[in-house]
């Protein structure tokens, strides 16, 4: 059980900071990551009410560059890359030919012919192979593994921008934008994105600059927050998590990500996605709230068909919440369902996403 017995796990440049802060470390996709420091709820509430800082350096980066970089990404990613301006950020999914989701990704356009795509840790190698395999059709595009070049910190919460702004040499990029800034002594890619439903930034920094950046942002009031809080925060606002809510077994339409699938661009999988969109999917990812006691968990069956893909106790709402693939006609707000939580039938009601809204 002790951290020291975990075999051959990768460590981020912030490992020493986590140990000093008393983190509980776990194996996450082959990385020794902080799941929590003093407590999930305290960290969760800090992000909702003030500011939290997360080490997400386990996430991967792929750099795509060259005169055909945009064309290659247009072929790979579900969203419309032509709509991504220099200095912009865009969310998309990576699909197989059959429309199954290989990963969900943010892509930042750093320059006219230079893009950085952030991958999920568990999918990074597969994504990289997929990118490289398809790059052969685009000789003017170069794909490089950039995972070792970047540490990644997420600073999230209503005070996050204020805290980071105070150490920045220029105004921070707005939401869904990216730009290089000097933060303290470090040159950092500041991205107006996040995974918590709060305002804030994600910082891509050189690994050697990460500890100083972490310490400085902490000193200014950000509470270290672990992967457990990251999970409860994203689930309250119904952001899907790859491996839970997204998989190669299902496509973006079923997952509620039809808004980032632009089939007219001809991305790999577009025909399959268009067919499901036209015929309407059999199942949809629904968000629900348990009425009464009980905490739904991944894998719990939904009575009458379907399965919970993510579940937790919502720290802000104080009840069990989750997402589940259910027959499409039941994925409608107000529908009453029952979740089989290890043999106990827990009544629940389907709700509109997100489950948590500011001020609710």
């Amino acid at each position, binding site marked *: 059980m002790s951290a020291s017995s975990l075999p051959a796990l990768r460590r981020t440049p912030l490992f020493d900071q986590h140990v000093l802060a008393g983190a509980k470390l776990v194996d996450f996709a082959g990385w020794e990551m902080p799941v929590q420091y003093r407590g999930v709820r305290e960290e969760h509430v800090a992000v909702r009410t003030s500011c939290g800082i997360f080490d997400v350096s386990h996430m991967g980066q792929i750099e795509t560059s060259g005169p055909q970089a945009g064309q290659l990404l247009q072929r790979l990613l579900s969203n419309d890359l032509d709509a991504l301006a220099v200095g912009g950020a865009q969310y998309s999914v990576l699909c197989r030919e059959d429309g199954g989701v290989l990963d969900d990704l943010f892509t930042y356009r750093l320059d006219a012919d230079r893009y950085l795509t952030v991958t999920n840790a568990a999918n990074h190698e597969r994504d990289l192979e997929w990118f490289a395999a398809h790059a052969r059709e685009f000789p003017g595009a170069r794909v490089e593994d950039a995972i070792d070049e970047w540490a990644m910190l997420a600073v999230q919460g209503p005070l996050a921008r204020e805290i980071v702004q105070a150490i920045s040499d220029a105004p921070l990029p707005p939401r869904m934008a990216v730009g290089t800034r000097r933060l303290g002594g470090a040159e950092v890619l500041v991205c107006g994105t996040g995974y918590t439903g709060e305002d804030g930034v994600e910082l891509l920094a050189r690994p050697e600059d990460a500890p100083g950046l972490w310490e400085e942002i902490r000193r200014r009031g950000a509470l270290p927050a672990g992967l457990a809080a990251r999970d409860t925060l994203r689930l309250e606002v119904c952001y899907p998590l790859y491996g839970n809510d997204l998989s190669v077994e299902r496509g973006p339409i079923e997952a509620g990500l039809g808004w980032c699938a632009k089939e007219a661009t001809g991305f790999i999988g577009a025909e399959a996605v268009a067919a499901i969109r036209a015929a309407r999917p059999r199942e949809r990812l629904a968000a629900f709230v348990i009425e009464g006691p009980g*905490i739904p968990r991944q894998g719990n069956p939904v009575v009458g068909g379907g399965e919970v893909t993510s579940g*937790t*106790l919502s720290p802000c709402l104080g009840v069990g919440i989750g997402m589940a693939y259910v027959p499409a006609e039941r994925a409608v707000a107000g529908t009453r369902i029952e979740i089989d939580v290890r043999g106990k039938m827990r009544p629940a009601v389907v709700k509109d996403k997100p489950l948590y809204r500011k001020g609710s």
Partner: protein
Amino acid sequence: MAQASYPEDLLYHPEHDWARIDPADPEHAVLGITWYAQDALGEVVFFDPPSVGSTLQKDAPYAEVESVKAVSDVVAPLSGEIVEVNTALAENPGQINEDPYGEGWLVKVRLSDPGEPAVLMDAASYRGSLAG
């Protein structure tokens, strides 16, 4: 409580449960989970108690405690019949973290096998098992 503690007056089960048997009332035991168990679990947010009158089988799960992140079975250190459950935990399951040997007790049982307590560990043995 922030610091590990394993009171001398308790008996311990390898699955990180404790039993308190009052010498004046050797037919009953109060059960709970150890400091180690609650620390590994993190903040407990839900305790689903068994019902009074149900029976416990030594070494078999009899209840569940859940943290935000995970659910964990609670294993019975001794066999018996439940005569009381800690109903206060429904409102305040965090007591299992804050006071695992006091307010965070889980159930009280009438023991069915008087020979069983002798095979449980004392505090020193349990501490030793954690160090290994």
